[in-house]
């Protein structure tokens, strides 16, 4: 396993665009936290995002994993190009000739996907921990380490998403088309959502829970629900308007299961495609 991982890391280590994109990705996470902690001074009104309670434990786990997950598209580019490059450089063929089996090839790619997800998760954990320790109003041990399931959900989300990218890269062979397909798929899920909404209004048949939640991208976004309406300031504003949020923000078991199954399918399909293909 270590051999397969080190093969893949050797390929990535010397690739300048991979390095640049990864650095951009991790700096963006840092950058966003930095902005949040800057004190704005508008017309004598001191305003600091960090003071709005977003960095309170344990809410910070929810908030930061949600925000960091938006940036995953940067690493998606790395994943897609690490697949499609193997085709364009024709090194996939050479790797196999040199004695890597197709199975090992897929495993080495998947291990890298998992590694990227682990590194991102650890990075988000460290950044959130530091921000929390600086800005949080509550610093009791029990509170700090509660709600850590958001980090787990974040990890599952990344692995699922990157596996989807890996599958697209293997299948489509070209990074631009693979990313394009990802966008088209997102639009497709969006259109289906509109259709289902229309059906629900017209016939009261709710296809969201029976069908829509099983779509890969929707399942991934269900893993970590939007954290904004949970924010104390937003909630109290809503209360004043007579609205009340009764949403649950917990990490559900179903999305984790669905995304895990999609991950398995993407990896398996990647293998099947590679196995059937004449290179």
């Amino acid at each position, binding site marked *: 396993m270590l*051999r397969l991982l*080190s*093969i893949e890391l*050797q*390929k990535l280590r*010397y*690739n*300048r665009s991979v390095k640049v994109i990864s650095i951009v990705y991790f700096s963006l996470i840092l950058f966003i936290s930095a902005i949040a902690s800057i004190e704005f001074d508008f017309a004598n009104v001191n305003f600091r995002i960090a003071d709005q309670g977003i960095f309170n434990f344990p809410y910070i786990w929810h908030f930061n994993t949600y925000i960091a997950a938006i940036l995953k598209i940067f690493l998606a580019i790395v994943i897609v190009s690490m697949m499609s*490059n193997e085709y364009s*450089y*024709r*090194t996939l*063929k*050479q*790797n*196999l*000739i*040199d*004695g*890597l*089996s*197709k199975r*090992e090839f897929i495993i080495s790619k998947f291990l890298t996907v998992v590694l990227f997800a682990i590194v991102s998760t650890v990075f988000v954990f460290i950044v959130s921990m530091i921000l929390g320790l600086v800005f949080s109003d509550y610093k009791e041990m029990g509170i700090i380490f509660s709600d850590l399931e958001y980090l787990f959900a974040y990890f599952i989300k990344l692995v699922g998403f990157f596996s989807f990218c890996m599958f697209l890269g293997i299948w489509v062979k070209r990074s631009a088309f693979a990313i394009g397909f990802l966008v088209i798929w997102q639009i497709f899920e969006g259109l289906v959502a509109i259709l289902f909404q229309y059906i629900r209004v017209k016939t009261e048949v709710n296809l969201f829970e029976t069908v829509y939640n099983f779509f890969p991208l929707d399942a991934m976004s269900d893993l970590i629900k939007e954290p904004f309406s949970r924010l104390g300031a937003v909630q109290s504003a809503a209360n004043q308007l007579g609205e009340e949020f009764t949403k649950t923000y917990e990490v559900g078991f179903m999305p984790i299961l669905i995304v895990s199954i999609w991950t398995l399918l993407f990896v398996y399909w990647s293998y099947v495609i590679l*196995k*059937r293909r*004449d*290179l």
Partner: protein
Amino acid sequence: METILTLNNLTKKFGPITAVNNLSFSIEKGNVYGILGPNGSGKSTTLGIVLNVVNKTSGDYSWFNGTESTHEALKKVGAIIERPNFYPYMTAAQNLELVCKIKGVDTSKIDEKLKVVELYERKHSKFSTFSLGMKQRLAIASALLNDPEILILDEPTNGLDPQGIHQIREIIKVIASQGTTILLASHLLDEVEKVCTHVVILRKGVSLYSGSVEGMNASHGFFVVSAANKQQLQAELSTNPAFGTIKEEGENLVAYLNEPMDASEFNRQMHAKGIALSHLVKRKESLEEQFLEITKNLN
């Protein structure tokens, strides 16, 4: 003798096209094999199948008497196909390091192999800066990293300039002289003729000949002759049962022998018939001529 690779009725179809048709041959340790065939005859497909990158349609093949799985066996094989494939952003040494990791061998041989192909000075240059000849030599270095049981080369001199071709051939000769089994696919016959002991001739995926190079040269050769009276000579040759095909080549006639006959005997016969030869040379067909003969017969 130790068998390295055996092919049994191997067939590959691409849709309606049969690229490799019922191909069987085996490769023994220590020989230098040539796979000959015009472009599109199925050479690369055959190599692709045994190298695990093309899926066979039917038949089978086995490495080292089937004692190991294909990808394990390939770790003991060195192969370069079509054109050299490396990561352009890595240096020569980094690319070879990667191959070492895949093959599971130590990286200590990298310098040595780079010296064999005269690329040691460029070991820290990026692959993308290499000329085609250098890329091809790097591919050979990479194929040699594991001191392979067999070296498979598919059109190794394709697209190279004369100097590059010469360099590659010299390297191949050196490797062959060290006793490494070589399988060389090529459409360049003199290339095969110069280094190979055995040949497999392919045409449209069918094996036309498989055996030693000498065995292939088993014909009795031919005479290139001319005389002042060409018509008379031609008439005489065509009635002589010792000759098969007779061709005109400019001023000369080329007469292929059906049975052994030496030049002086032929000269005596002609003299007896009152034909004075102004030119007489006996030759054996070169591999190229044989090859064209063999592949043409099936048209």
